[in-house]
């Protein structure tokens, strides 16, 4: 081994504490990078394999009732490869052990053989047999209720209970996430998918030789838009509700959004971590070059080339990066594999395809090297530019001036040691600033790491206590006159009731469109409110005009006062234009609301309602459930507290797992930054400190120079960290902004407090470590050696 390489290794060994801290930060950054990236790739591959193998449809459409012969005409649309027609109905389910009614989506499957598209992956049991009242139950619903093959449950079909026996438990690519009814989030307890034989379902719902739902696969290269257009034309006479592609298929969309959010984390966290690692490398290597000024000069005097010296110091950074990258890639792959398993269970994928691609490892190493070598470039350039003759002279005493505080006339209040400390900070403002920024970044990462909980808490609080204030939401099987509402109002324990009308529509603005439910709500609604940007709430205009979710406005590229084409997809299917009267800053889903009366007028109907929101006396809730279950015109009941609980669970499962890693790594960073800053400060001032000790200063006074500086810089860094943290939170909230929910940029004071506490604790421990060195300072040695 070359002597210079030996020096490299010994220098590294001599700084092992600092080297380890940087290696750890790099490893943390690259581990999150590798973990997220491999996990996203694995989930995507597994999803593709799942979709491919179980023939997930490309285009979906629902209608009122169409004859089976229509399928042949649909198959003739150019570009259509396969068509699957079926009956899909939603019914009220009664499951043993559950008081509240659940919503069941019954989907017909052929009695013999498998469906052409959207095939099932049987987890347990068997396929159904003809004419035996059997059903295959979705695994999520089965697990939520402990249903196994042979168990029974009841569906309310045409007002009568009908028994279904569980033949098998399955998963389907169409329902990776089971979102149904009025819900925006998967609720496996209250919403389940059941596959039953076509003939039985057709008989029960008067759909023999007919269907009301279809799905198709198109040929590669065909135009989805064109197929949807033709499909809409063919299904319109049969009450078509508008065809849509996978982009608008709820389960796929939800899954894609989740993967997109993982991607935000995959890029945001590593960038921050690597930025901090680069910063640490920069201070350590700068310090190294400064302290080895004379060694560099000697090497040059003996004829070492600039390239050899540059290589030497770049290698220093390189070795650290390679160590960090190796640990990061291995750790990331391990975490990625574990997390992929967790997610795959959560998504219920039938197969899992995890691997660490060579390109991911190479990218991690490349990014690490780029960040690390980029960071030390200035220091290395300084080493190279050092003229050998000048470097042979001892470094001239650094130029100091009186500190700002002293110039302000407060100098007399300060001890000489404190003055030294302040002048030191002021003399090297860039370095002091960098240290402040480094500590601030640690605070910021901690703020970001903990903010997700705040956001979820705020979202729930805001959406449920402020915007949707009902206890129960009842949906009716069919729109009815407002007599139904009055009937519900009379139920004992109902304190307040507001009817609503929902109409399936397609909103069009230019080439952009969305399928959704247009809701009519009564004026001065107490239960539904529309927050305006800033503060306060919007009023529902009496004369028509809609209030849209701000996100919907963004999706449709609509401005205030602009008009939207509304295609109603039920009844006489009227088309009209409505203007946008306001944007509601709601946090979940895409919603369009208007005045109930105005909606009834446009629909040319009487005072019809589709359901009602109500506030119920808590003591009477049980009774109300019981009554609702007995009402044949009730399709579903959503209980808000249950929905909240479910939402929290969902969010925690999917987002907080990743978040936990970030918090752990953020703590590592806080320690890494503060410890390194303290060690560098100590190394730089070794001499000065020894001199002070020789002159008779106590250990405490001497230590104060270091610890005091660290303390002062940390105190300056904390508010900056709060601000940076807020910026990170806002940026990541933007990345988490989906059509299903908007993660608000919210940070509670407790989160700032925790971040501050962890950073101060890190600073305190680092201070203690450095203080221990002051105690052991070799006074004579430090003065003899000319460093």
């Amino acid at each position: 081994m070359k002597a210079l390489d030996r020096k490299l290794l010994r220098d590294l060994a001599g700084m092992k504490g600092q080297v380890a801290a940087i290696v750890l930060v790099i490893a943390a950054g690259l581990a999150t990078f590798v973990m997220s990236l491999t996990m996203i790739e694995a989930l995507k591959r597994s999803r593709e394999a799942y979709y491919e193998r179980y023939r997930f449809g490309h285009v979906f459409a629902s209608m009122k009732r169409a004859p089976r012969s229509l399928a042949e005409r649909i198959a003739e649309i150019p570009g259509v490869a396969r068509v699957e027609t079926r009956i899909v109905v939603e019914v009220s389910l009664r499951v043993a052990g559950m008081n509240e009614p659940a919503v069941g989506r019954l989907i017909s499957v052929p009695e013999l053989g498998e469906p052409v598209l959207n095939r099932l992956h049987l987890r347990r049991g068997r396929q159904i047999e003809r004419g035996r009242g059997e059903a295959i139950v979705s695994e999520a619903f089965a697990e939520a209720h402990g249903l196994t093959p042979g168990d029974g449950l009841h569906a309310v079909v045409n007002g009568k209970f009908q028994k279904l026996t569980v033949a098998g438990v399955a998963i389907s690519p169409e329902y990776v996430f089971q979102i149904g009814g009025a819900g925006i989030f998967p609720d496996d307890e209250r919403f389940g998918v059941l596959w039953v034989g076509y003939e039985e379902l057709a008989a029960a719902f008067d759909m023999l030789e007919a269907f009301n739902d279809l799905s198709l696969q198109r040929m590669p290269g065909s135009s989805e838009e064109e197929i949807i257009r033709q499909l809409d034309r063919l299904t319109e006479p049969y009450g078509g509700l508008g065809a849509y592609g996978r982009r608008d298929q709820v389960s796929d969309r939800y899954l894609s959004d989740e993967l997109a959010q993982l991607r935000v984390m995959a890029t945001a966290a590593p960038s921050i971590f690597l930025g901090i690692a680069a910063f640490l490398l920069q201070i350590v290597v700068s310090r190294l070059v400064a302290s080895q000024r004379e060694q560099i000069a000697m090497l040059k005097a003996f004829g070492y080339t600039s390239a050899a010296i540059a290589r030497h110091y770049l290698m220093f950074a390189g070795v650290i990066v390679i160590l960090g990258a190796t640990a990061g890639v291995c750790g990331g792959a391990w975490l990625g594999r574990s997390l992929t398993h967790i997610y795959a269970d959560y998504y219920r994928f039938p197969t899992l395809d995890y691997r660490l691609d060579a390109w991911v490892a190479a990218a991690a190493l490349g990014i690490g090297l780029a960040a690390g070598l980029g960071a030390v470039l200035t220091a290395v350039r300084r080493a190279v530019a050092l003229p050998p003759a000048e470097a042979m002279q001892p470094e001239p005493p650094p130029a100091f001036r009186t500190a700002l505080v002293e110039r302000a006339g407060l100098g007399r209040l300060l001890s000489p040691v404190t003055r030294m400390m302040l002048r030191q900070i002021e003399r090297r403002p860039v370095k002091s600033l960098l240290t402040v920024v480094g500590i601030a970044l640690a605070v910021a990462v901690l703020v970001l790491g903990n903010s997700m909980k705040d956001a979820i808490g705020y979202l729930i609080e805001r959406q449920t206590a402020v915007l949707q204030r009902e206890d129960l939401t009842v949906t009716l099987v069919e729109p009815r006159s407002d007599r139904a509402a009055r009937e519900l109002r009379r139920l004992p324990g109902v304190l307040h009731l507001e009817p609503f009308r929902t109409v399936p529509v397609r909103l069009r603005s230019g080439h952009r469109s969305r399928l959704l439910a247009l809701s009519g709500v009564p004026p001065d609604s107490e239960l539904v409110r529309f927050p305006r940007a800033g503060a306060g709430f919007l009023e529902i205009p009496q004369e028509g005009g809609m209030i849209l979710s701000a996100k919907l406005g963004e999706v449709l590229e609509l401005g205030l006062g602009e008009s939207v084409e509304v295609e109603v997809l039920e009844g006489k299917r009227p088309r009209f234009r409505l203007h946008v009267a306001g944007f509601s800053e709601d946090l979940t889903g895409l919603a369009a609301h208007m005045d109930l009366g105005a909606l009834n007028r446009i629909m040319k109907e009487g005072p019809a309602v589709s359901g009602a929101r109500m506030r119920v006396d808590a003591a009477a809730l049980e009774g109300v459930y019981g009554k609702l279950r007995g009402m044949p015109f009730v399709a579903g009941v959503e209980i808000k507290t249950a929905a909240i609980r479910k939402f929290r669970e969902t969010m925690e499962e999917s987002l907080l797992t990743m978040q936990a890693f970030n918090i752990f790594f953020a703590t590592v960073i806080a320690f890494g930054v503060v410890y390194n800053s303290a060690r560098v400060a100590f190394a730089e001032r070794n001499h000065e400190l020894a001199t002070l000790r020789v002159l008779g200063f106590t250990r405490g006074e001497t230590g104060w120079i270091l610890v005091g500086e660290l303390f002062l810089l940390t105190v300056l860094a904390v508010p900056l960290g709060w601000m940076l943290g807020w910026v990170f939170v806002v940026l990541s909230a933007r990345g988490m902004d989906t059509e299903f929910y908007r993660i608000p940029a919210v940070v509670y004071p407790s989160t700032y407090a925790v971040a501050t506490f962890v950073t101060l604790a890190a600073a305190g421990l680092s201070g203690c470590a450095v203080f221990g060195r002051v105690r052991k300072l070799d006074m004579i040695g430090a003065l003899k050696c000319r460093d």
Partner: protein
Amino acid sequence: MHPVSGPYSQSDDAPVGSPERIQVLSVRAVSRVYRMGEIEVIALGGVDLDVFEGEFIVLLGPSGSGKSTLLNVLGGLDRPTQGRVIYRGVDLGGFSEAGLTRFRRRHVGFVFQFYNLLPSLTARENVALVTEIADTAMAPGDALELVGLGHRMDHFPSQLSGGEQQRVAIARAVVKRPDVLLADEPTGALDVVTGITVLEVLAHANRQLGATTVVITHNAVIAGMADRVVHLSGGTISRIESNATRMDAQELSW
């Protein structure tokens, strides 16, 4: 042998002081001005000097007299502001930075007042640092034997006394059999006894290896060891003395 091409011939047996002495280094009208903020410091103000093969020269003068600057200019560590430095007929002024680096690597050995050993390397490794980039080097162990440290080769600088460290530095300077050996206050940080040992080693290297040696000191006593003593003051050469006989380092005392 000496890749620096030029009209020079090498004669190993030309006696010191004889008229056919070969010029190793020639300094012609060299000045060096440093700019420090708004003031100009004239470190050297028009110096002429010839250094001959195998010679042992002592540069003597108070601090600030320009000794170190002259030494740095001779060794290609620094460039003169004006004037020429000629090494065996070749003007160093025509060299690029890389050329100067090659010149130092092949022909010059340095000894510094504060030794400048790499603390993370052992004595042997410090010497090996040079042998690894030189073409005509002896083994690091031999160089350390030459300075009497054969038994402490695997010690780190922190385990060596000041005198021993300086001897390692000398071993490091001579290991590549340099044409020119330059020492800046090699005894400056040492006590008398240790200083004498170090000077002995230098003189030994000069005689044994034939390296042209220039030593800076502000200690006039050392002048007795030299073939010639160059006195500097205020950036110019005030006088040059020749010693008829060189004293042995053992005979010196201060």
